[in-house]
């Protein structure tokens, strides 16, 4: 920001009449391009972050190369890549990994499509818009545990409203056990994931839509462009950067999610909804295999990073051409 530059008088000669302190003393105080004032302001945030976030993260990465176990801190030994060798053959982990990817892709895509639809509707001058706006924000304010519990009540095979409604509409016989069915559990959980994640995406897309220039729409419309045409040529190009970042973030959040599925199915039935985080949680805090679980975490980060790099690079390339 140009405004920020003005407030940095010590960097250069000050415009106007102000008497800046001598530059030499300021320069001596500079560390990493910041003067003492700035460090003083950053420090209160920096310390907890270093101690409780960056530090543990580095420590966690190093744990992936040890046989650390819960409760056994004294005899931890460096084991190199043993954990990763073992992990390579751990078919259960890879099963959960595949489920995690499938879940993340499904939830992210559906979240995006549904949120785009809702955002486009909310951007219109429709009558019940305020209600939809309010409702769309509610899932955000709810603890994920409550969201999970709520949907368990909906999916409940006997007392749930879903079976009852479907039965009344003569669509099913009303005895479906959604969360215990091998084939239906994952789709059922995906629906909950979409429901829970829609607010953020909708709000972000709505903000993006408000940046779409109305005049362009009018011009395109005068040129005879239909709705779809106007969407692809006017709305979408403006929205694109927003879409890119929110989709990438949603994918990461979904792949790493835990609480929702923990409450809904705890990974069941038969591991069909066992997300990698649930798997790693069990490994660490049920079986006490800290080192092994840390290795899982590291593999998850690595794969996400690679996927994201590919995704973002392709999208950026497209943007350039």
């Amino acid at each position: 920001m140009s405004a920020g530059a003005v407030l940095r008088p010590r960097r250069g000669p000050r415009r106007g009449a102000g008497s800046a302190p001598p530059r030499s003393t300021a320069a001596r105080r500079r560390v990493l391009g910041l003067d003492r004032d700035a460090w003083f302001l950053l420090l209160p945030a920096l310390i907890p972050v270093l101690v409780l976030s960056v530090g543990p993260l580095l420590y966690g990465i190093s744990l992936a190369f040890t046989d650390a176990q819960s409760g056994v801190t004294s005899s931890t030994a460096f084991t190199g890549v043993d954990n990763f060798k073992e992990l390579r053959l751990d078919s259960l982990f890879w099963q959960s990994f595949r489920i995690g990817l499938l879940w993340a892709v499904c939830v992210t895509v559906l979240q995006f499509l549904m949120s785009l639809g809702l955002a486009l509707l909310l951007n219109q001058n429709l009558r019940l818009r305020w209600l939809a706006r309010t409702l769309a924000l509610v899932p955000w304010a709810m603890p994920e545990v409550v969201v999970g519990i709520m949907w368990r009540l909906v999916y409940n095979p006997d007392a749930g409203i879903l079976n009852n409604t479907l039965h009344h509409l003569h669509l099913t016989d009303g005895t479906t056990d959604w969360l215990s069915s091998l084939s239906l559990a994952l789709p059922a959980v995906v629906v909950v994931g979409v429901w829970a994640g829609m607010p953020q995406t909708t709000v972000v897309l709505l903000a993006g839509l408000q940046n779409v220039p109305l005049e362009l729409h009018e011009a395109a419309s005068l040129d005879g462009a239909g709705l779809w045409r106007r969407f692809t040529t006017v709305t979408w190009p403006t929205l694109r950067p927003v879409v890119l970042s929110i989709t990438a973030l949603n994918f990461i959040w979904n792949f790493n999610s835990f609480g929702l599925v923990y409450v809904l199915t705890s990974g069941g039935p038969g591991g069909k909804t066992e997300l990698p985080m649930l798997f790693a949680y069990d490994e660490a805090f049920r079986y006490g295999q800290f080192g092994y679980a840390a290795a899982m975490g590291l593999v998850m980060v690595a794969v996400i990073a690679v996927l994201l790099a590919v995704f973002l690079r392709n999208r950026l390339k497209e943007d350039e051409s």
Partner: protein
Amino acid sequence: MSATDAAGPAAVPAPPAPPRAPAPDGSPGAGRRTARRRAGRAGQYLALLCYLVFLAFPLLWLVSTAFKSPQELGSVHPTWLPRHPTLDNFRTAFDEQPLLHSALNSLLIAGISAVVSVAVAVPAAYAMVRFRSVVSRAGTGWILVSQMFPLVLVIIPLFMVLKNLHLIDSRLGLGLVYVVWTLPFALWMLQGYVRAVPVSLEEAAAIDGCSRARALRSVVLPLLTPGLVATLMFSFVTAWNEFFFGLVLLKSPEKQTMSVILTHFLGAEGAADLGPLAAASVLATLPSLLFFALLQKRLVGGMMTGAVKG
């Protein structure tokens, strides 16, 4: 799944139609165009209705279940609304689990960590906006990267570190973790608010002989107040709703937070007493819902200034 299917991708509606000058009466295309526009409107309302159903029906069901009597909950033909609304489920919920105590725990932990988080985030956000340099870039990078790591990679070492500090199963320990957990977002939001404060005001204060600290305190801070409140509430809600850290770091039931206590209602085999479960869930949502209702506009605005300009 009817609601979802109906509101699914197929229902993605048409992009906003800009206001068009009404076609002059009698022109050949006019009738067809208004008809088409009317059909479009109807389609939009239909889509909106589907969304409303999808968004609202689980909520309605949760609240309705919370007020139903055991007989009604056992009925084979559940009704949307309780026939004889009762508060029994709430009473039972309080009897079964230490709800009040866990609510106080959550309130204390989330409240204090939100205050601390915002207190350390304000100067940091200010520095990141006003002194743009390596560190502010590193800070922004950290905010983004911190979203990428699966929590299991952080929680294991954190568990070990806190254990060595005797802060496992301690509300203080969890509070500290929440400070760091809510910090990226607090920084994100506050940066947007700091950017909105005109630098000229600070310069004017400096010319009048104000030190930077004084200018920060008596010029910038008052202007930031609405943003501070919004960020504070958001941090509170984030910590209040958090589950994973609470699950791992707190073991004694008398210290656990509300999110964790709620899962006790589910029982070992997942067979739950539905009424009290729903009642407790409703209670657990109320504080954050209240904050959201009060600050809806500001929260969304704050997130957007952070996100769009970030």
